[in-house]
């Protein structure tokens, strides 16, 4: 097991290094001068030239890359062009918001997904099933910005239950989390339903039933346990999409998160900030996948033994 974890960790580091290189190279071929963008309308071309060399952007790419990696290892991701602040500080303030948002969204998705999926599977073709599956299908079909705007309109503007945007307290995360998590909730509930349906028809369930266990017992002790495998994988994968899907939700609800930083970096052609946010999010996703992997190992004894 330990060996497995170590190997996966090593792989993760390797992937991260490659991602860093990839992002770095991609951003160097982008047309447009970041300094010109940063300085805005009323600026002298000579100043742009001077600043370009001050920031080392006229150096060869290899030099720039190694300098960047060395600095990054010391925790210095450079200074944002567009915001004039150190990138690591910006990420540090933004990250808690994204994390809370993604976790709330995941919680919503997991709870709703499992409840809806289970009920739908048990009461197949009932009104509840139709209702929940409608909810799920809508979730996977509605663009996230549409969901966000509708929620904003109904619950914040119309009903006045919650604030329209910004982060003031924990309540500020409710609408964004639902908007963001709906899609995942849909995917998970559909998966739970189909997996459960399959398992409920399997022989050992029949055996369990024959042994006289009630339906609740059957579900909890046998079916759910087996259904958890694909569901857990899906849940972990969803976390990745939640973290990156947060881009749009964060923009609409004006939450200062990693996704919005990335958007801002793109708008301002802010290479250090984009590099920082991209690397950071990638690291998060890799960690999420790693966690899913390990959890999978814990849940499935076969895999545990294999490794």
């Amino acid at each position, binding site marked *: 097991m330990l060996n497995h974890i170590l190997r996966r960790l090593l792989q993760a580091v390797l992937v991260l290094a490659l991602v860093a290189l990839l992002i770095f190279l991609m951003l160097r071929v*982008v*047309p*447009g001068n970041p300094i010109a963008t940063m300085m805005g309308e009323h600026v002298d071309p000579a100043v742009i030239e001077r600043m370009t060399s001050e920031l080392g952007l006229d150096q060869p790419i290899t030099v720039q890359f190694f300098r960047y990696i060395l600095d990054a290892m010391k925790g210095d991701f450079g200074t944002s062009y567009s915001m004039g602040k150190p990138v690591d500080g910006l990420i540090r303030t933004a990250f808690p918001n994204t994390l809370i948002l993604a976790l709330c969204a995941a919680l919503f998705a997991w709870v709703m997904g499992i*409840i809806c999926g289970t*009920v739908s599977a048990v009461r197949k073709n009932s009104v509840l099933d139709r209702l929940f599956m409608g909810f799920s299908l809508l979730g996977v079909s509605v663009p996230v910005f549409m969901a966000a705007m509708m929620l*904003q309109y109904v619950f914040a503007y119309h009903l006045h239950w919650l604030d329209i*945007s*910004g982060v003031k307290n924990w309540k500020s995360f409710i609408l964004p989390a639902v908007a963001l998590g709906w899609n995942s909730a849909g995917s998970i509930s559909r998966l739970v339903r189909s997996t459960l349906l399959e398992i409920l028809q399997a022989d050992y369930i029949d055996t369990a039933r024959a042994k006289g266990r009630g339906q609740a017992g059957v579900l909890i002790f046998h079916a759910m346990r087996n259904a958890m495998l694909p569901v857990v994988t899906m849940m972990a994968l969803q976390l990745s999409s939640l973290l990156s899907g947060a881009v749009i939700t964060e923009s609409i609800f004006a939450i200062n998160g990693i996704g919005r930083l990335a958007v801002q970096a793109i708008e301002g*052609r802010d290479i250090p900030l984009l590099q920082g946010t991209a690397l950071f999010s990638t690291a998060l996703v890799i960690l999420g996948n790693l966690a899913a992997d390990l959890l999978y190992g814990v849940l499935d004894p076969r895999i545990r033994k294999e490794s």
Partner: protein
Amino acid sequence: MKQMKKTFALLLFVALALSVFPVLADEPGEGVLRTAILYDISTMDVTKTTDDYMIPMNVFDRLFETRMIDGMSQAVGSLCTDYSVSEDGLKYDFVLREGVVFSNGSPLTASDVQYSFERLLKENRSNTDVALEVAGAEALVNGESGTLAGFAITDDTHFSVTLSAPNAGFIAELSAPFMSVVDAETMAGAKQFGTDPADTIGSGPYIITEWVSNDHYTLVYNPLYWGEEPSVKKLIVSVIPDAGTQDLMFRNGELDIIDLQGLDSAIVESSYKLLFPERIVSTPKVGLTYLAINSGNEYLSDVRVRKAIGMALDVESIITGIYFDNAVRENGIIPTGIWGHNDALPGFSYDPDGARALLSEAGYKDGDVRFELAQDNTAGSNIRLVYDAVSDYLAAVGIRAEVRSYDHSSWLDLRNSGAMDAFVARWGMDYNDPANIMYTFFGSPANTAVRSLNYADTGIMERVSAARAIVDDGERQAEYRALEQKIIGEDAAWIPMFEELHLYCLGDRVASFTPHWAGFTDFYIIDVVLK
């Protein structure tokens, strides 16, 4: 069945949990004003920005401020209480206001003003043009000298500035936000000036207390401020990147002033003007929306084609159709509201047949003339429509001008390279002097190239540059009029279109609001009066 009951119970619980939330958003406190901006500011240091003036305007003071007095904008003394100019227009003697202190208690002296001038030049980022006019500025920028030779201090409240050439607009220029005065003593220990509120100390009516990136910043009243105590004691500016969200927040009472320029004018017309007719405040956005055409382009180098373009555009219909008349037609370079503006310029009149005739005279048939209308994809919805309308009007006279969208950086890059065919943009005035627009666009070959105009007449450009130094107002005005006539009337070097109105809507907590004289998004908080 058990599961179903449980599920119902859970759903019920969720529904209940949702419904017991404390209902309304928090009420704002006494003296608090709440507004929103679409993009966060990038810095609080005015030497590093040409866009984010809100904090510099309110946290710092300048020697002069441009204020609206009886409908006219003019420079009035702020930190400077009196000044005189020498006969030759070169030497200015200033008297500083007595007893002014910065918000940390440090007193204001003439050396702080000198420090501020020199800092602008040493930082050498942007907005250096005014300070560069002072004698010895070049030497300071080049590092040949450590101090600004043209700046002479008599005592703590008296100093003089000598220019390298006379400039009639100098006092107006001193009121520009980037001429803010900082404290030399504080700056010595302020490592994070412009990024950390604690280090960003000015003498203005407000103190910046916090700036949370991408979220909000807060200004509170500076009790040491030398002037009158304003009505607003605290301002919270939230960063709300979506105009639609701002719209909702305002209607929900979460904002006290909304800047309507982020919204399409059709929304303003169809909802705001009906819902809150008395609460809309409008001010000219002093500046010019223009169609730039590149005289270096294959087709556009022919003056007849350029004139045909001017005649092909029905600007009046654009103003009515897109802006619902919240704009005025402009025919020259110097926009309405700026000293030297000429109301009598004839301009281009809408004449599609005349345009066709000119094109065929130039030897072009239908569809021969084609170029690209480059659009910055960060442009607002009104400007996008203007692009589409321009393209349509040109198509109607047989010019194929396709709109192509670029991201902001590529767009700037292409424009700065001088190779952009044509584009629609707006120039906002920084201070009330015609040089701010004339010189920027037509003052030198480099200036016209960087805006992809590539105006060819170097003789005219020299005159534009020289016009800055004419001290006599009448003479200067006559020269600008002649130049405008030549550049627009004869050469059709660019197509002026209109000056927009900037609309705001006030929430019910605001009694009155006077926007910035030039219609900036940023405003003086002292100009807001709460109920």
